[in-house]
Structure formats: structure tokens, C-alpha cells
């Protein structure tokens, strides 16, 4: 009955700028249409006596089932009553009935939701229980049973239905209040001595207002439907015209005068759709999810890949190893609704040689992760490689389809993510997530894959491979999960591992272990690693060569030793200062130049 409560809640957070909301609704075509239809229906109900000169209850037995005429605009029904007059008055009663149900539901639901959410305690548990009780009842059965008690009254039925629908508002309000109750500004108001009622009024009601309106539209439509349904099966008050009652009469005369069905059916459908569209449009406006309109044609935005050239340190090795990965002039961007391109990587060039560990270092937002995702062919939705090339082992990767990339992913290039816990599917065991890719990319049997998976789990230093194999992701620690992900990354014997900040999300004590593991595996397997990090400590620990990235560009690149010995770019310098100053903490790297100046004096 109230599945929409949860959906509606999502928008509870971004209310605000309310004055514009009504205006935005009128500008939204769907919203405008819904508002016009609802307004017309309300006008029809209000002005009913002016819209027809006929008495809706006057039965002319000699003139039944008449076709539309000047006297009877829409003809007459099975009792010879004027259909237009009945329709107009039915609109009045049906809308009033639905309004009664909605009003009661909102009054009960919002009040109890506020009390339960704000004060909690016993009231909350009692309400929760009552809510689940009421929600387990099929509304129509209750209404029918109630009819046996209170007789066929429209108002009684709608009042009871209002009570039955109250949980929709209760859940909505309760959840919203719970969300707001402990917000800082509410605490502040409480500390400042503001009384509860005014906190509720000012801070809490503003949050639930819009979702309550959306819910009210939905509840109204449900009330209209159930009321019409009751009327249709002949359960409504026969003394007043209602949409459902008209439908009932028309249905019995379906063969003689099918047109009779059209009027009540259309108006019920129109009203229901209008309320549904209203709710939907309001929700859209609240979410500001004005969908980005695709720009017609393929007029691609201009790509800008220019900038100062990177500081390149000379190679120190006498005989450098063969090239494995060659990224040249890579530009990554996200298409915007207006057709422009927001660039996050602005012409990155870097090379990774076979078997080397290459550090890609830079602060958050410098584009290093985006670079890594482009090489993997796994940019997030909306992102694309706008220019440049990525050549892996002599093969151009840009422009390859997802399907073609799948043959390279896992088997040739693999990935160790940053956040171990969110990178394992919570619904499957760790074992099955290791076995599945091996069976697919290596084409081995399930039994073989399992044996390999157990070996791998042992190899990455997990004490009880069998147990980990059977565990679900939520049953292991972050450090263990990262070991599992490393096992997954090496499971299909790749040539290149892209490790995206593999230790950032872990406890400091675990970080060192994971780095040791990576180093050990790298040396044992001779695999190349592109290590994305913001931490020069990690680079110093592991990397043969380094590329320093800032604002989507490589500013300095070369052998790690050489860069450590003499950083040339001011940004690289500031990264060093940060590591010296506060022990490789993250986030202190922005405004690099100021930092650089202050670093000495601040000590």
C-alpha cells in the first residue's frame, strides 16, 4: 500500500528553496498537465450545480439508456438519470471522499510519526507494531468487513481507509525525523533553549513537507481507486452518485449501451493518472533530476590537451626493459548536458616497462585514478577517452569495445582496488568470486579453479584458506579482503597489475603488510605494476619509476631514485614537504605552492 514511502523519503534531504518549487512545477510540462487536470476536476466538483440543470437523482423510467442529446448531454443511465449530471456530482462526492481519506491518513501518520521520531520510547515501538499490523491487512477486505458493521457509507469507508493508509505517512515522517533529529543544527537549537514544538515546526516539518505532499498525491490516487472499486462491486452508498457507482450501473448494461462505461472509466483513469503524474513531477523537481539532454549529432567538444611539458629525468639503467604499456596524450572527459566536455585528464603520457613498478602519484582529484580506469577500459558512466592512445603490448586499447576489452581484463591487465570491502560482491562467497573469473578467462574446470583459489589464498598470506574460501565478504576484515582482492588480481596471471591506492583504506598496521605482500608477489611473478598512490612513502618503498600527476597532467617523471634525489617541479617538491611535515597524511596537499612556502616556517 505504501511502497512509495521509501522512494519518497530519498528526496527528503534536498528540500529547500521551496518558493521556487511551485514555479518549477508549473514549468515542468508533466507537472503543469497534472495541475491543470486536478484543478479542472476540483472546479467541476465545486461548481457542480452550475454545470448542469438536471437533477442527478431524477429517474425518468420512460427514457432509460438514452443516447446523448441536447437535453441529456451524455445520455441517460439504466434508471433514466442524466449521466452528465451524475458525473459532475459524482466528481464532487468522489473527490471529497478521497480527500477525507488522505487528510485523515496524513493527520494521523504525520502526527504519530513526529511524536515517535522525536520522542521515541514506548510510543515508537507501539506505533511500529501497529504499522506492521495495518500494513499486513488487505485494505479491500477490511473495508468489506467494515461495511458489514457500519453499512454502506462513503464517508465511513473513506475514514477507515484513511486510518489504514496512515502508515504510509507515519513511516515517511518517522524516518525523516530520525534523520534530522540528530543533525547538528537541531542539536544547536535544542542547546540554545528552543522549545520542542518550535524545533519540530521550524526544522522538522520543513524537511517532511514536500515528501508528505508527494505521498498525499499517491494516497489520494489509491483512495480514488479503492473507492471506485467499492462502488463498482455495488458496495458504495446507493443514495449518492459516485464514479464507482456509475461504473457499476454501466457494467451491467455493457451490452446495451457500452458508451455508458466510457465516462466514469475515463474520469477515474484521468484523475488517477493526474495524481500519479503530479507526485512524479514533484519528486523529479525535488531531486532536480532534469535529465541531461543528449546533444543531437556527434559534434564532439573540443579537446584541450595542451600544457607545460613534464620534467623528464633521464633513465639511469643501462639497458631499459621492453615497453609494456605506452600511454600517449590521454585525455579523459565527461560529457555534460550542454554538450561540453569536462576534462579530468588533460593529455597524460606515461610508459610502464615489463616487470617494473611504476608509481603514479598525485593528490585527490589529480586524475590518476581516472587514468588508471581508462587503461583498464572501465571508466565510470558518462566518462570516455576523448583523445590520445593507450598501447598495451603493441595493441591499441582505445576504441576497443567492452566485449573486446573483456579478453584483456583479468588475463593481461588486472586490478587491485582501493576500498577492499566495497569491491567484493556481498552476496557471493569469496571462493566463488575467485573461481568464477578463472573458469571464464583461463577456461579451467571448477575443481581446478578451486584448487588454484586455495593456493592463491595461501600465497597471499591468509592463515586458513579453506575458511576464507567459504566466507562471505562481510565475515572477513578489511586487510583480509584486500589480500583476497590481490589474490584475485594475480589469479589469471596478468602482465600488468593496476593497483589503485591499495593501502589507503586500511589500518596503518595492515598497510605495511599489504605493501610487503605486493612487493613479494611482484618480485616472484615478475609482473609489472602501475601503482596509483598519493603517498611518497609507498613510492619510496616499492617503485622503480615515478610519474607525478597534478591537475590531470604529468608534471614530472623518471626513475624513482633520481626524482627523490632531485625533484625539479614545485609540486613534486611540495609533496615531499608534506611527507616530511606530517608523516604522509592525506589531504594536506592542496594549494601546493602556499604549502611549500609555509612549510619551513611553520615548524
Amino acid at each position, binding site marked *: 500500500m505504501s511502497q512509495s514511502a521509501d522512494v519518497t523519503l530519498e528526496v527528503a534531504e534536498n528540500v529547500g528553496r521551496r518558493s521556487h518549487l511551485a514555479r518549477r512545477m508549473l514549468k515542468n510540462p508533466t507537472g503543469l498537465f497534472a495541475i491543470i487536470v486536478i484543478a479542472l476536476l476540483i472546479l467541476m466538483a465545486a461548481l457542480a450545480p452550475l454545470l448542469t440543470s438536471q437533477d442527478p437523482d431524477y429517474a425518468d423510467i420512460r427514457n432509460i439508456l438514452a443516447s446523448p442529446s441536447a437535453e441529456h448531454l451524455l445520455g441517460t443511465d439504466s434508471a433514466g438519470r442524466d449521466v452528465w449530471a451524475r458525473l459532475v456530482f459524482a466528481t464532487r462526492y468522489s473527490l471529497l471522499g478521497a480527500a477525507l481519506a488522505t487528510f485523515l491518513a496524513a493527520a494521523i501518520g504525520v502526527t504519530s510519526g513526529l511524536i515517535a521520531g522525536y520522542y521515541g520510547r514506548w510510543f515508537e515501538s507501539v506505533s511500529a507494531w501497529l504499522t506492521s499490523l495495518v*500494513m499486513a491487512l*488487505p485494505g479491500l477486505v477490511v473495508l468489506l468487513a467494515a461495511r458489514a458493521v457500519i453499512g454502506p457509507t462513503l464517508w465511513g469507508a473513506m475514514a477507515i481507509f484513511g486510518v489504514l493508509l496512515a502508515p504510509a505517512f507515519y513511516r515517511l515522517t518517522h524516518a525523516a525525523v530520525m534523520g534530522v533529529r540528530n543533525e547538528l543544527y537541531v542539536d544547536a537549537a535544542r542547546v540554545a533553549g528552543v522549545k520542542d514544538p518550535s524545533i519540530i515546526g521550524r526544522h522538522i516539518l520543513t524537511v517532511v513537507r514536500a515528501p508528505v505532499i508527494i505521498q498525499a498525491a499517491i494516497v489520494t490516487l489509491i483512495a480514488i*481507486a*479503492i473507492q*471506485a472499486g467499492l462502488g463498482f462491486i455495488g458496495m458504495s452508498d446507493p443514495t449518492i452518485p459516485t464514479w464507482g457507482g456509475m461504473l457499476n450501473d454501466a457494467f451491467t448494461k455493457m451490452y446495451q449501451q457500452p458508451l455508458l462505461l466510457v465516462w466514469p472509466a475515463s474520469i477515474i483513469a484521468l484523475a488517477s493518472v493526474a495524481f500519479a503524474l503530479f507526485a512524479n513531477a514533484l519528486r523529479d523537481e525535488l531531486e532536480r533530476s532534469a535529465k541531461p539532454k543528449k546533444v543531437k549529432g556527434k559534434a564532439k567538444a573540443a579537446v584541450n590537451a595542451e600544457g607545460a611539458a613534464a620534467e623528464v629525468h633521464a633513465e639511469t639503467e643501462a639497458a631499459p626493459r621492453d615497453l609494456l604499456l605506452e600511454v600517449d596524450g590521454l585525455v579523459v572527459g565527461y560529457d555534460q548536458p550542454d554538450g561540453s566536455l569536462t576534462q579530468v585528464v588533460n593529455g597524460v603520457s606515461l610508459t610502464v616497462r615489463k616487470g617494473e613498478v611504476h608509481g603514479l602519484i598525485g593528490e585527490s582529484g589529480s586524475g590518476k585514478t581516472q587514468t588508471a580506469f581508462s587503461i583498464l577500459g572501465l571508466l565510470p558512466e558518462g566518462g570516455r577517452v576523448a583523445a590520445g592512445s593507450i598501447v598495451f603490448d603493441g595493441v591499441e586499447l582505445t576504441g576497443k569495445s567492452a566485449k573486446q576489452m573483456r579478453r584483456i581484463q583479468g588475463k593481461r591487465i588486472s586490478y587491485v582496488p582501493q576500498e577492499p570491502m566495497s569491491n*567484493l560482491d*556481498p*552476496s557471493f562467497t569469496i571462493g566463488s568470486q575467485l573461481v568464477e*573469473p578463472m573458469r571464464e578467462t583461463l577456461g579451467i574446470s571448477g575443481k581446478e579453479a578451486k584448487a588454484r583459489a586455495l593456493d592463491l589464498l595461501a600465497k597471499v598470506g591468509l592463515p586458513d584458506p579453506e575458511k576464507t574460501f567459504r566466507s562471505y565478504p562481510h565475515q572477513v576484515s578489511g586487510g583480509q579482503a584486500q589480500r583476497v582482492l590481490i589474490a584475485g588480481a594475480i589469479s589469471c596471471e596478468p602482465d600488468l597489475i593496476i593497483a589503485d591506492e591499495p593501502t589507503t583504506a586500511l589500518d596503518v598496521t595492515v598497510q605495511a603488510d599489504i605493501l610487503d605482500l605486493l612487493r613479494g608477489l611482484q618480485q616472484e611473478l615478475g609482473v609489472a605494476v602501475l601503482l596509483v598512490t598519493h603517498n611518497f612513502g609507498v613510492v619510496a618503498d616499492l617503485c622503480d619509476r615515478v610519474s607525478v600527476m597534478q591537475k590531470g597532467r604529468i608534471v614530472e617523471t623518471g626513475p624513482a631514485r633520481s626524482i627523490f634525489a632531485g625533484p625539479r617541479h614545485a609540486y613534486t617538491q611540495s609533496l615531499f614537504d608534506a611527507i616530511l611535515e606530517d608523516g604522509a597524511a592525506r589531504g594536506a596537499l592542496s594549494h601546493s605552492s602556499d604549502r611549500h612556502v609555509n612549510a619551513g616556517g611553520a615548524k
Partner: protein
Amino acid sequence: MVQFTLRRLGAGVVLLFAITTIAYLLLYLSGGDIARQILGQTATEETVAKKAEELGLNEPLVPRYIDWLGNALHGDFGRSWFSSQPVAETITSRLAVTLTLVVGTVLISALVSIALGVWAARKRGWVDRLIQVLSILGFAIPSFLIAILLVNVFALNLGWFQPTGYTRWSASPAGWLESVTLPIIALSIGAVAAVAQQVRGSVIDAQRQDWVRTLRSRGVRENKVIYKHVLRNAGGPALAVLALQFVGLLGGTLIVEQIFAIPGIGPLTIQSTTQGDIPIVMGVVVATGVVVVVVNLVFDLLQGFLNPKVRLS
């Protein structure tokens, strides 16, 4: 898991007890001159009084309720005041018909809404917008209006189906299929609209999860990523919506059965409530209560199956 199931069952029993108590209390208050209604206007005062005595109408509420409850626990729900048929028998045969419709609707809605929801979530663009608009219409328009439309178009005008009536599976499977097709379509549209929206939303959310990228990075095929991993994770919220739809469907079938003249509990409920046939009304209340409790339990178990965190905690 066993403990979880038992706890859920316990809560269900409490719920059933609460529902029946409230229903009995309300029906008792309704009073009315039932005996007169049963016997008709021509009966004498004496026979009416005798009938009232026979039905136990003169006894106070509490003993009457305890009596009813005691019998109900033994599966004896009394006899209809009007037809004198045993309530349990009348309801079980009709409930089976209703449940056929509802379960059929739930299964079909689940399949169709998964297909539509995943399609909308993956394709986006015009497919997504079209499905969104259809969902709003499907959600807004009451099932009985759709049923009336279907009867008019497919039964009366095109003559593809029988407009009304019900054929038992045992009598003719083809006839049964013909008689349930239109009702199930009419009932499914609203459920599909609601569930497809939820599937779409959850699939879009699940697709953005980090582990989807990691699975792809391992070379797992796209279809496996979507239909095995993403769908399973998106299944929980969709299942919750489907469970709510089920409760709504129990109400919706009442009207749809009336339209198609299907001998489920719908026509029985409508008849018994208008007559004031309290034993039957109570039977219907208990039957729907039991169905709701059992179905919720089934959905909870399905949630546990989908989500190991629910299952293992």
C-alpha cells in the same frame, strides 16, 4: 536461520490473533437483526427469537469469542448462517482459486518486471523513458478498469477469450489457461509497474557499486555480471516491493473475480459482508490473515536466500 523463521512465525501468530480479535469485536458490535434477515420478513417473532438463541446471538461477547477461538484452533469455523455450509470447506475451495490467480500474477509480474527493469536500467535513453511513463500509467490506473477494458476488447469484440467464468485445471488445462489469462493480465499490470520501477532503480544503484567494476576487471562476462551479480544484489528491494504488492493483490482480486465471475473468495466476501454472514466473514479474515503471514514468511526466507547478511546473522 531456524531461529529467524521461528521468530517470524511467532510474530505472525500474534498478528493473526490481533486481527481476529479486532474483527470479532467489530462484527459483534455491528449486531443488527441477523436472525430476522436469515428467516425473512414472513417469520414470526418466536421463530426469530429461537433462531437467535440457536446462533448464540444472545450470549455476551467474551464467552462467544472464546468459544469461536477454541473451535477455530481445531479448524472448526462454524457454519454459514445463510447456507449452513461449513465455513472451512467453503473457504478452502474458493481460496485455492484466488491463490491460483494471485500466485500466477506474482510470478508473471516478477518475470516481466525483472525483464523491463533491467532493460530500462541498462539501455537508459528512450527505452527507459518509455518504461517510466508506462509504469506511471500502470501504477495509477486501477486493475479493475484494466479488467473492464480487457473484457471489452479481447472477449467481447475480438472473441479471443470467454468473457466470464472459470474452468478448473482438472477439467481442462487449456480451458483453465483461457479463463485465468485476462484476470492475471489485469492484475499484473499494476504490480509490474511498481516492481519494474524498483528493479530499474536497484539495478542502476547496484551497477554503480565498486565490486561491479572489479568483477569486470577480472574478465567476467557482462551477462554474468548483470544477471548473476547485479540482479541478485538488486533483488532484495524489488522483493520487498513485490511482497507489498501481494497484499494489495489480495484486495484487487476481489473485484477482478467479480468482473470475470470467478468463484474465488471475492464474490464470497462481497456476498457475506452484505448479508452480515459473520461466520463466513470471520473465515475470510482468518484466511487472508494466514495467507499474508505465510507469504511474508516466504518473502523473508527469499530475502535470506538472496542476502547472506540476513541469513547468517
